[in-house]
């Protein structure tokens, strides 16, 4: 898509949302068998899976901390998650995203309960559509809870941006590409900010207003995260892995058991 003339028309964004409206969110807890905790999170066109392993032994050992757990976070984009195929493996962007995402979650984890051990968080982006880091943090936060890691609270994340001189919540890909500013934020339910990045152009007042907008978005996401966890743990007797972890719009070409 080339730059559209207008990204907001009559107060409505190109995808039909109001400025302060989040994209649709779909959450599924405990989608993986091997991981200690996991979560599939769909955030508009973003499809991410988070897995948590731990507390477990630390390799290599020199990363151990004697008085607390070490938290590690690996954000990774699948090669096929974007329009132009991405070369597999970490790049500078994913290393930075991993760092700030880890720092967004560390404050809520009771790391001191698990000295000399590791809590490993893996986030795989299966499809990317602007906002993968916030989708990853939302998913990872749930996966940590699903893994039984003691936490002070969940962490919720979304971005605020500016398009056509208007502050909007939760940028989609076009708004990210052609907008004027992007500001991903993560916070705890009591409003403590654990991730803050920004680039583009925001006046001092726009920034302050944007921060408040993000707060409302994060609180809405927090409710959905809680709901998803409660659903999972109130239905312990159900098959925990009965549905496809991601919506498909697919032509399913199979499904029967082969004997």
């Amino acid at each position: 898509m080339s730059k559209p003339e207008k990204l907001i028309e009559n107060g409505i964004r190109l995808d039909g949302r109001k400025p302060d409206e989040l994209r649709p969110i779909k959450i599924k807890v405990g989608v993986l068998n091997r991981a200690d905790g996991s979560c599939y999170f769909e955030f508009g066109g973003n499809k991410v899976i988070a897995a948590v392993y731990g507390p477990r032994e630390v390799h290599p050992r020199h990363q151990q901390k004697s008085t607390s757990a070490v938290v590690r976070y690996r954000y990774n984009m699948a090669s096929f998650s974007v329009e132009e195929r991405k070369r597999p493996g970490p790049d500078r962007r994913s290393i930075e995203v991993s760092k700030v995402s880890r720092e967004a979650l560390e404050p809520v984890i009771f790391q001191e309960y698990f000295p000399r051990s590791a809590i490993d968080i893996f986030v795989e982006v299966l499809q990317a559509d602007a906002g993968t880091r916030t989708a990853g943090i939302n998913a990872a936060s749930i996966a940590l809870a699903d893994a039984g890691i003691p936490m002070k609270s969940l962490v919720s994340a979304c971005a605020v941006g500016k398009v056509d001189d208007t502050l909007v919540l939760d940028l989609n890909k076009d708004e990210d590409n052609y907008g004027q500013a992007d500001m991903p934020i993560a916070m705890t339910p009591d409003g403590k900010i654990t991730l803050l990045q920004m680039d583009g152009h925001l006046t001092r007042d726009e920034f302050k207003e944007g921060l408040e907008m993000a707060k409302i978005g994060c609180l809405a996401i927090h409710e959905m995260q809680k709901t998803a966890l409660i659903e999972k743990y109130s239905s312990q007797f159900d098959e925990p892995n009965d549905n496809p972890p991601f919506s498909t719009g697919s032509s399913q070409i199979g499904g029967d058991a082969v004997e």
Partner: protein
Amino acid sequence: MIIHLFRRVHHKSGVMPLSNEIMAELRKDYIYNLMIKGEREDGRAFDQYRELTIDTNVIEKAEGSARVKLGDTHVVVGVKIQPGTPFPDTPDQGVIITNLELIPLASPVFESGPPREDAIELARVVDRGIRESQSIDLSRLCVTAGEKVWMVFIDVHVLDDGGNIMDAASLGAIAALMTAKLPAKRFDLGEDTPVPMRDVPVAVTAVEIGGSIMLDPSLNEQSIAGTKLTVISNQDGALSGMQKSGVHPLTTEQINYIVDIAIEKAKEIREKFLEI
């Protein structure tokens, strides 16, 4: 709110390796003893596959994609297609590049970093299964001979290792290709068309445990098996690829038995899941 209400009592990946080793030994005995009685831990017959589902078009950004669940194993395969330069020795043929990583999300024993020999072997067998069966008509992937051809990237993303990644990955690759489109419009090269498929190779993997042969090994079965043999066969019932993996030798009889059963099973899977 303190969330450790949700805390599980038993962690799957524990801090105590000793108990893990003992568990492994017990599991081995358990499976071995079942096998002697002709049984498997999940009640399957020796030649029975676990429940299999294949969903396609699960990643809209990819030119083709498939999600395969085979028992507890879960893989997503994405096919990306873009124009590129042909290899000098095949100037009029498209290019297939297959990649598979065993990312640490999928198992407590997988590690970050460049692919290791297991992942490389899996990727190369999936690749040969597609390539050597001539399932894709590479000459029809040529745009301008010597200059521009379609590059087909098959990326296998393993999300959950429940055993027999080999078959899940192979099934995912062929299913994703069968629904993939050459994105000609996006590159001003005419209308989008399907990837020109000519065959539907299906990989079937058996393991040998104490002299018995079992198809579609679970993670536990795989962990105590001495050898895996993957047999890839085509629509015409002929073999297009094989790979023995593991240190136990096999007898000619064992191999011939696996080949026979694998060709039948491949036919069955093809008909149920991969008929267009």
